[in-house]
């Protein structure tokens, strides 16, 4: 797995590439938690870009759920972006699509989260 985290104007983007299994899932969870906890913003938003993610195991999904809870605890939001069909399908099967929205790209995800924080709404991607 390759993981790159960068800060954008409206939040953080974590780019996850390759297979996210076993220790890599633990690492993903740890890095997302660190990013959320160390963010200077009062309500940090984070986008997990999974365009190049071959697959996530259940531990990797668990890492996303934990990150979703952590960011919510800080008043922020989390979403996926550029999810390929197999990841969208996995979210549907597990029903995690109910708590982790997915958007076509990073900019759309950040814009939607910003709008939601400001009281608006945007339509996520569906499988």
């Amino acid at each position: 797995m390759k993981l790159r985290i960068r800060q954008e104007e409206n939040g953080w983007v974590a780019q996850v590439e390759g297979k996210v299994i076993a220790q890599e899932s633990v690492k993903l969870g740890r890095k997302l938690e660190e990013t959320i906890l160390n963010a200077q913003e009062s309500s940090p938003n984070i986008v997990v870009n999974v365009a190049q993610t071959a697959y996530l195991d259940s531990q990797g999904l668990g890492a996303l759920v934990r990150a979703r809870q952590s960011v919510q605890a800080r008043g922020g939001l989390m979403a996926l972006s550029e999810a390929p069909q197999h990841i969208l399908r996995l979210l549907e099967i597990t029903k995690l699509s109910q708590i982790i929205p997915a958007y076509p790209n990073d900019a759309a995800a950040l814009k939607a989260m910003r709008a939601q924080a400001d009281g608006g709404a945007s339509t996520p991607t569906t499988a």
Partner: protein
Amino acid sequence: MRFEHFIQPLPKSGERVQTIAAAFPSALKYVPALEAMVHSLARALSFDERGANEIAAAAVEGAMNALQHGNQKDISKNIFLAAIVEPNRLTIKIKDEGAGFDVEKVEDPREGDRIWKDSGRGILIMRYYMDSVSYDPKGVELTLVKKRPR
């Protein structure tokens, strides 16, 4: 590690069944090797990349359950993997040295507040990826089956 070296010639219609077996200590660091072996085997059996990923992902879920819930992360205990290659299907068996469990008592991770849990989705994911997922009565041996591509 490349699995196909152990399985040549690959069985085709009418040929005999082949079984490949391996054992792994119960530690997270060995799971990628197990994944690579299963993925490599699936590709050698003409599954496409997506199909191979799905089979390998199911094997990872089974191995993680065996490691964490079965063997309780006791590195002195092994996870046994067997791949049974038949002309029309691939069967993966994963066995642990734990006390076993009742698969019927596993709760649906999609229901109610369980959606917020960070674990418990392994069996659901295996069922999504494979044609058949079953445990022996003791709950120590998992059997995963996928039809081979024609």
